[in-house]
């Protein structure tokens, strides 16, 4: 009788044993799952390709932080990726070859840029937010292309070769792969903790109804600003890794048009949750890398897919997987397991 009541009233509550699992252990499962996933697909594609995918997934997570969690669509996140790439590359080129330092510089400068621009941008919303980011992205692209040409070598770009740092030799593909995987897991873990914390709930509340959150006494500007800086910094990380992965930086790192890729990735994966961002990132990378080989008009295909997603498929792949989990497995399988134990 009691367990029937339980399943009627609270169908999504897990039974006692599962609920007692500490968060860290749950987190460990997630991380292992992601790591295993990427290790598994590596033999299918090349190490270099999968490293590429993973860097894009980091970028996708930065975008999703803004779009999925905070509800702001940015059409200019590439600005921060590019800033990270250029600062990291320029540091190695002109100052020193230490790769870890260079990456930190890339992250730092991207974060600082986000801090500065965020002061203005974060006050806006909707179309204004999207377009103002686009404008700054465009300006940034132009800056590295033309006025700063002396330093950045304009359209041609420049090569980047980091020095070895103990065992960290980024010239070696497997080591690069390992390092990027580590970064991915680190970013995922930090974001997972952050978004499950009260901060994460607050950010999502801001997405729902900012006025109400403000009336509750919170300084929503600070929270939005912080999120913007964080997203910029993570994008900067992705940018630095790009520079090191390709040993090369050019204005494409700040290309405005590349923003569509990350938008597509988060939409198809499922906006608003990190698994979705990663999944979407992989799907987009697969599509953009392999589809052109098989379908000549792949951009048209991308366009139609986007339309289908917008009109029919809003929750994204991960969203549907989650829904499947909620309604079938949790509702039916788990109570059945509970019944078995009762007997």
């Amino acid at each position, binding site marked *: 009788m009691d367990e029937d009541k339980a399943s009627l009233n609270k169908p999504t509550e897990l039974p006692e044993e599962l609920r007692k699992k500490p968060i860290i252990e749950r987190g460990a499962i997630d991380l292992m799952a992601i790591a295993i996933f990427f290790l598994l697909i590596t033999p299918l594609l090349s190490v270099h390709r999968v490293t590429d995918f993973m860097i894009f997934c980091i970028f996708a997570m930065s975008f999703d932080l803004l*779009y999925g969690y905070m509800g702001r*669509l940015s*059409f200019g996140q590439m600005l921060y990726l590019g800033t990270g790439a250029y600062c990291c590359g320029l540091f190695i080129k002109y100052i020193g070859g230490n790769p870890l330092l260079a990456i930190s510089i890339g992250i730092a400068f991207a974060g600082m840029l986000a801090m500065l621009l965020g002061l*203005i941008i974060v*006050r*806006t*919303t*909707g*179309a*204004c937010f*999207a*377009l*103002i980011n*686009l*404008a*700054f992205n*465009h*300006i940034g692209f*132009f800056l590295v*292309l*033309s*006025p700063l040409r002396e330093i950045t070598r304009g359209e041609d770009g420049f090569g980047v070769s980091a020095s070895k740092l103990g065992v960290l030799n980024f010239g070696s593909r497997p080591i690069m792969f390992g390092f990027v995987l580590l970064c991915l897991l680190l970013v995922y873990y930090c974001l997972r903790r952050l978004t499950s914390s009260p901060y994460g709930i607050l950010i999502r509340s801001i997405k729902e109804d900012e006025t109400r959150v403000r009336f509750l006494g919170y300084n929503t500007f600070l929270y939005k600003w912080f999120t913007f800086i964080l997203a910029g910094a993570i994008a900067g990380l992705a940018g630095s890794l790009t520079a090191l992965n390709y040993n090369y930086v050019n204005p494409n790192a700040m290309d405005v*048009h590349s923003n*569509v890729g990350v*938008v597509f990735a988060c*939409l198809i994966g499922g906006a608003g949750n990190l698994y979705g961002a990663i999944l979407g990132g992989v799907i987009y990378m697969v599509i953009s890398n392999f589809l052109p080989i098989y379908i000549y*008009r792949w*951009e*048209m295909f*991308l*366009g*139609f*897919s*986007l*339309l289908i*997603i*917008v*009109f029919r498929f*809003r929750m994204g792949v991960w969203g549907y997987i989650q829904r499947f989990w909620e309604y079938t497995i949790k509702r039916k399988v788990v109570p059945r397991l509970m019944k078995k134990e009762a007997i």
Partner: protein
Amino acid sequence: MIYTIVYGLTIGAILYFISIGLSLTFGAMRVINFAHTLTYTIGVYVLITLVNFFKWCFPLGAILAILAVIPIGYIIERFIIRRLYGESLDYTFIATFAIALIGVDAIKWIWSVRPYPISDPIGKYLLFWGLSLPIYRIVIVMIAIILFFALNIFFKKTIVGKIVVAALEDKDGVRCLGVNVDKYFSIVFILGSALAALGGVLYAPIGSVHPYMGLSVLLLSFAVVIVGGMGNLNGTFLSAFALGMVMSITARYWSQGAETMVFIVMAIVLIFKPIDI
């Protein structure tokens, strides 16, 4: 210097043609239409086909190109834009962007990526204080001015125009007076698309023609609409010419910075006067 002014006015005129439709769609339907300049590009390609391949004369080709674009505008409005009414902003962005992607790829498919030059249809020059100014550019500016007055008459004197003005301010109010606003907004959308095609057609002889030309001018027209005010046609007129001059003057001293300067202006405007959609 005179050249700079004339070129600035020409660019301003072209931007005006394109931005009218964008401004109305923004103001009326609260939809940011990334596919707006698709009709601009398609109009150009149709024109080129007619003029270069079928050897039509320019004015006739231009008119037919603009007419050819109308059914495309209708299809986009009927099947995509209308479904996006009241939707969250992100989805309208993405859906219209998808249409733009499909459209550009379709153009590449039909016409290939090769640029098609088309020459100045008038080819004559006006001798003015010792300078020779292309008459064609002056004609463009004159058409823009005529259009400005024509639109003013339309929106101030005709009942359809008044309904649109009222609906831009209070859509529900107009609906509750029995008028099917959506139908009129569609007309406005198609009109805007046709005007964008006009802009493209007039621009073709003086600029470069390629499948992505729509995208490069789209961002500029967003800037024009934001600076001039959404749904504000007089504002769009002024800001189009102002930004055209900005581009022309910037190009004179710093050749590649023209577009960037426009974006800097847009960013400044957005900082001090954010839009609220």
